[in-house]
């Protein structure tokens, strides 16, 4: 049936969407980067091979996995290591890992693999080249790895409930792309259809990494169990995702890429507005929604966290799921504007976790309305960086009020509003968040408090005549140049700015991490502190050789085997 595309409902206000607590409650959706990738791989009938698997009985060696698309091939080059437990750390300051990887642009020669073997295992201390598109590493989940190896070696299948609880055999602790450590810049691949959407290279790297990890655990079980070792049941293997452990590095990313971040949020907001504008839902659309709601409940039942903040959020989400179930018992979604009614109800009845869950889930029955928006999620507007110097001071002040109005009356010298400062540490150059009044870090502060800086620029502008140009002001006050640039960007990127204090004493960096990771398509957010989170990727997804048009998209919603 023809779906109505005319949008009547407006996109939600950035002032509502861009609050940190809401960004920290976002859920994956049809636009997620992992799902974009698996849909494309299936649609274009990519083929997958493992030309190299040279790993010894101690689990040390190398392997190559090649993905061949319609025009080009990409290869994951993997190195497996024997890591002593005392060296196993998720932190960016680690110097050794259970496995290290690079995504090679094409099919590597033996000489390429030898070159990479001298560099990739060193990660930040090595160098890769323009032939490489990413650099990453992963550590085992010690508990689940041992369980799976021991079970298979003894001729048994691993316990599914333990797999659901952990979710993965290895977690990546960094996936570097876009020119890091000598790798190719994004510009090299940005015009390729398969890499146009954000993070497709990194998502492919992780997709292939998951296959390598499955093969490696089988290899180790075979080495241990010999003839009596069992083959891992594919139905069980499917629940093994890849974990990811993410620290503060991601938080500055969304502040430093306001146009890109805007494009992600705006695409989702546009999708939500389009679906809310659907006048009536067909029987199939309603059935699909109800089916996926049921499957979501199963996934969320596996979501565990030991962190008090997430424990509380999960309690709210579970209560929200009950409320949604009750709503769906009373409302068969057959009336007018069923999705708008559901969303409007959620805003009055559910926590932000539940509201954002609903907002993502209503997109599922509408690939025709939603999936085309994936082409709007990259940032290719390099010219947006250039300031329009002819803008009048009066206009610039108006723009500041529009985006940062909430911040202008805040006392930015009060301790609670500026208790924290973002800085980069000397060792390993990792971003950190420190206590401004307790540590000697202010001199090193990074510009990651746009709202405070906007308030300062606004004050400075107040002494100028409204009709003067911003060029005249910036000649005298270059210290406000980065702020005026952001303010001008915000005209076309209204969802690019976080509408909250990023240096206040109550800021939770995990909110920023979750916002980004939700667009990757991550599930089961498990904060380890207020600035460190573990997630699961690709759990439930088909492996490359199993990928079909039927299973390429909705794998994120588990089907109860019963």
């Amino acid at each position: 049936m023809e779906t109505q595309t005319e949008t009547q409902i407006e996109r939600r206000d950035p002032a509502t969407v861009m609050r940190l607590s809401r960004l920290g409650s976002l859920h994956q959706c049809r636009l997620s980067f992992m799902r974009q990738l698996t849909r494309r791989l299936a649609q274009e009938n990519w083929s997958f091979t493992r030309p190299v698997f040279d790993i010894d009985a101690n689990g040390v060696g190398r392997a190559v996995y090649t993905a061949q698309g319609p025009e080009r091939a990409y290869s994951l080059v993997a190195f497996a290591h024997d890591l002593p437990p005392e060296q196993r750390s998720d932190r960016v300051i680690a110097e050794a890992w259970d496995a290290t990887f690079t995504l090679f642009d094409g099919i590597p020669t033996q000489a390429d693999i030898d070159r990479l073997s001298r560099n990739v295992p060193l990660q930040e201390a090595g160098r890769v080249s323009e032939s490489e598109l990413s650099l990453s590493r992963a550590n085992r989940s010690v508990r689940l790895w041992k369980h799976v190896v021991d079970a298979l070696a003894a001729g048994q299948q691993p316990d599914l409930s333990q797999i659901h609880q952990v979710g993965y055999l290895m977690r990546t602790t960094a996936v570097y792309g876009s020119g890091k450590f000598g790798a190719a810049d994004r510009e090299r691949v940005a015009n390729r259809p398969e890499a146009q959407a954000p993070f497709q290279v990194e998502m492919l790297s992780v997709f292939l990494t998951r296959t390598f990890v499955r093969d490696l655990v089988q290899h180790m079980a075979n080495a241990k169990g010999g003839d009596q070792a069992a083959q891992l049941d594919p139905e069980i293997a499917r629940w093994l995702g890849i974990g990811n452990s993410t620290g503060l590095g991601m938080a500055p990313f969304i502040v430093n890429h306001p146009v890109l971040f805007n494009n992600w949020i705006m695409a989702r907001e546009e999708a939500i507005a389009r679906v809310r504008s659907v006048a009536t839902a067909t029987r199939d659309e309603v059935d699909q929604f109800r089916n996926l709601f049921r499957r979501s409940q199963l996934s969320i039942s596996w979501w565990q966290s030991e962190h008090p903040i997430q424990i509380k959020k999960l309690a709210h989400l579970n209560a929200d799921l009950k409320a949604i179930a009750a709503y769906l018992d009373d409302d068969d979604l057959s009336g007018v504007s069923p999705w708008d009614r559901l969303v409007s109800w959620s805003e009055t009845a559910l926590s932000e976790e539940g509201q954002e869950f609903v907002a993502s889930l209503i997109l599922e029955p509408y690939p025709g309305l939603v999936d085309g928006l994936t082409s709007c999620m990259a940032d290719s507007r390099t010219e947006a960086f250039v300031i329009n110097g002819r803008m009048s001071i009066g206009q610039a002040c108006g723009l500041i009020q529009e985006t940062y109005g909430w911040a202008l009356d805040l006392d930015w010298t009060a301790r609670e509003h500026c208790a924290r400062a973002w800085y980069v540490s000397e060792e390993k150059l990792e971003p950190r968040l420190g206590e401004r009044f307790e540590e000697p870090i202010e001199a090193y502060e990074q510009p990651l408090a746009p709202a405070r800086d906007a308030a300062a620029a606004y004050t400075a502008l107040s002494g100028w005549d409204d009709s003067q140009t911003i060029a005249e002001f910036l000649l005298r006050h270059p210290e406000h140049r980065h702020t005026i640039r952001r303010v001008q960007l915000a005209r076309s990127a209204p969802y690019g700015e976080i509408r909250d204090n990023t240096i206040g004493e109550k800021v939770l960096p995990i909110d920023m991490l979750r916002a980004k990771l939700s667009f990757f398509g991550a599930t089961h957010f498990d904060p380890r502190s207020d600035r460190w989170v573990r997630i699961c990727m690709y759990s439930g997804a088909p492996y490359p050789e199993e990928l079909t048009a039927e299973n390429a998209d909705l794998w994120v919603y588990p089907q109860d085997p019963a």
Partner: protein
Amino acid sequence: MSFSLNEMEATAKRATRGAGYCWGQAEEAAKATRWLCAQGLDGASSLAALLSLGFASNPSMHRPKGASGVWTGEVALCPLSVGPLLSDSAHLLDEGHIEIHDLAAPALLLPFASYAARALNCAVAVEIDQIEAITDGVALSAPDRFPARAQRVVIHRSADPVSPCAQHTRANPTDADWDTLTTFAHRTYAPATEESRLLGAGAGLSDND
């Protein structure tokens, strides 16, 4: 050594900040250095030379007094003040030329001329003493080397076609220039303390689980 343009840009930004410039100028310097490298010019050399001059300790001495008339400063002008003023005031080129006296590291002006060219949708010529460069906003037609300092720079719209240099995807700075930039960049990093290692990154739980 071969660096990605992203590495060049990130290092240039930190170096410029480390040399004492404000963040907005550091962003401009980073994009400008990247742009020069993409044109096959030695952007790292131009930036390293500029930062070594120490202009950021007294910025008001090194910026034009205003956008009208000839652009001059108390002493040599800084391209990280002149360049942004040029791209912010590109419309002035519709009314005539812009003349600049005594400019340090003039090659760093070229990326800003390219922004002006894009804004005006025409080619822009930059005469640096005896040499000339022309950009249409994307490509650049220019000699390989530029003087460390220019006595007189004249910028104007141009009807000449741009015969572009090949676009480069890597930066190849000399070891000395790269060392200079990373030494400046190092000033932006806070010395690590045991407390910051634990608190600042929020670690603490064992990862052997």
